[in-house]
């Protein structure tokens, strides 16, 4: 297939801004959430602005076979069917909350209005907000929900989000995350999500594009990429793996839920989801310890058989271990070099991974 006409997102940009050089190429699937992840100054936001057409870089951009930019063409921002959510909600101060929501909706032809107002209001819980006149009277989280709704109401074919939670306090973040997760499940358009917070990415993304100093250093499926020890993500303090598993049993007595996946079972705090629904669990590397024999008499609920794939030094005292559980799920474990030597851990060994904590993210 001609790669230009293939579904999905294909971007290749070169841009010089003062001393910063963006030279980034990546492709992403045509569904799900792709996180553009990297430290501050790595060019994530600039890359997103290039995709929106807000920044004019040299290069090319193809969205599901449509050319938005190449050597001969540059579709202006207002003619690109995209939704853009900025870091700050950026509601128009001279318009009411409702007029803000409807600003983009009014500017697309009725035949292209595929996302009904009622639907967006339900997804984002806007029914109590829409009647409030002045957007300045809303809280930060409420304003950002209006901004997301405003973008969705243009029935975009791709949603671009530039750290939509970064400007919010912790409380507003916790308030808005469930709405984003709901969108993640309901939207059938691709989402590009810029973030420098690993926990947000682990919670929301399916696909990861890693940036460093203006260049794409890796991209791939979220769980595979997070578990790659050659990438900086595995060496962050809150590094960890993501496992998707199905709700299998509720234990009312101890208020726990059992999740099943190819690698075995995980017990987590009770989740109110029907049997069979797939949830995402995050296991931080620092919460995983390794035993060479099946542990007995332990308070830890979750012990999985695992095979060591790779071990890498991390500073003078620590190593990080990558393990495979089940068919293809990964776990990371951060242990001391001393433990590695005492247990004689090496790639290929069968071990038991003990998880002190498993955080459900969806």
């Amino acid at each position: 297939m001609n790669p230009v006409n293939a579904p999905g997102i294909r971007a290749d940009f070169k841009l010089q801004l003062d001393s910063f050089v963006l030279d980034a190429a990546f492709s992403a699937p045509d569904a799900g959430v792709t996180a553009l992840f990297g430290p501050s100054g790595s060019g994530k936001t600039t890359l997103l602005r290039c995709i929106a057409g807000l920044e004019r870089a040299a290069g090319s951009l193809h969205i599901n076979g449509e050319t938005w930019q190449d050597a001969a063409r540059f579709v202006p921002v207002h003619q690109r069917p995209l939704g853009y959510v900025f870091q700050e909600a950026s509601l128009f101060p001279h318009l009411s909350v409702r007029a803000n929501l409807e600003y983009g909706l009014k500017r697309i032809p009725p035949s292209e209005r595929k996302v009904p107002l009622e639907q967006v209001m339900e997804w984002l819980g806007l029914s109590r907000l829409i009647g409030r006149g002045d957007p300045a009277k809303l809280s930060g989280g409420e304003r950002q929900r209006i901004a997301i709704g405003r973008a969705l109401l243009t029935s975009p074919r791709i949603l671009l989000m530039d750290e939509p939670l970064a400007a919010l306090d912790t409380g507003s973040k916790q308030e808005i995350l469930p709405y984003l997760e709901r969108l993640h499940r309901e939207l059938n358009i691709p989402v590009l999500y810029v973030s420098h917070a690993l926990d947000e990415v682990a919670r929301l993304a399916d696909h990861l594009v890693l940036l460093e100093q203006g260049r794409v250093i890796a991209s791939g499926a979220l769980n595979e990429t997070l578990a790659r020890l050659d990438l900086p993500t595995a060496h962050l303090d809150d590094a960890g793996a993501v496992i998707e598993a199905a709700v299998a049993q509720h234990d009312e007595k101890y208020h726990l839920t059992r999740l099943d996946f190819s690698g075995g079972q995980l017990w987590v705090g009770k989740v109110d989801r029907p049997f069979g629904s797939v949830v995402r669990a995050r296991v931080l590397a620092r919460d995983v310890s390794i035993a060479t024999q099946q542990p007995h008499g332990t308070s830890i609920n979750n012990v999985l058989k695992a095979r060591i794939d790779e071990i890498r030094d991390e500073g003078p005292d620590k190593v990080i271990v990558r393990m495979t559980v089940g068919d293809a799920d990964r776990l990371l474990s951060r242990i001391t070099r001393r433990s590695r030597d005492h247990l004689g851990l090496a790639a290929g060994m069968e071990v038991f991974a003990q998880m002190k904590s498993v955080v459900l993210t969806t």
Partner: protein
Amino acid sequence: MHILDPDDLQAVWLTLKLASVATLLLLLIATPLAWWLAHSRKWYRSIVAALVALPLVLPPTVLGFYLLVLMGPQGPVGELTQALHLGTLPFTFAGLVVGSVLFSLPFAVQPLRNAFEAIGRRPLEVAATLRAGAWDRFVSVALPLARPGFFTAIILAFAHTVGEFGVVLMLGGNIPGETRVLSVTIYNHVEAMEYGAANWLAGSMVLFSFVVLLGLYLAGGKFARVMQ
């Protein structure tokens, strides 16, 4: 007691007409110019900004003198207007309008430029991602957000034209009903030692200016609260 005579009233009327026409033209010229100055990254932007600001520092007589020369029968502008069968502009109301617009230009451009710059790029970028084209963005976002700037520009341009003297004298002279505006009339009264008449006109000007400004500021205060 001296009351305003018909000649004085004619001067008042002429002045208000001149200030209204000049302010209207200034808005039409200054808005795109201020927008360009606020957003352009061209190297010659500073040169244009300096040229626009020139009347702030030039003595009005200097500006009036060069306009007189340029628009006179031998000046390039004068030759053009004559070729178009428009006659020459000096000593006409139209000539005063041209002079007033140039002289008050910085007073209209600067507040508008500040207002456009204060809006920043973000609201316009947001509007672009919401499918608004360039003109739509300007009308639906930039203009309403720049309203305080327009308010200031209108007051300053109008007041500055009402009070103008040097350019008028150089360019328009002293023709009743055509170019004899208020400031010139007051000057004439003083020259003729008619201090009473000068006082009536000057005092009325002070009162009028104060009432206009007070009214606008009161309205502006209400407007500013609505904007928040």
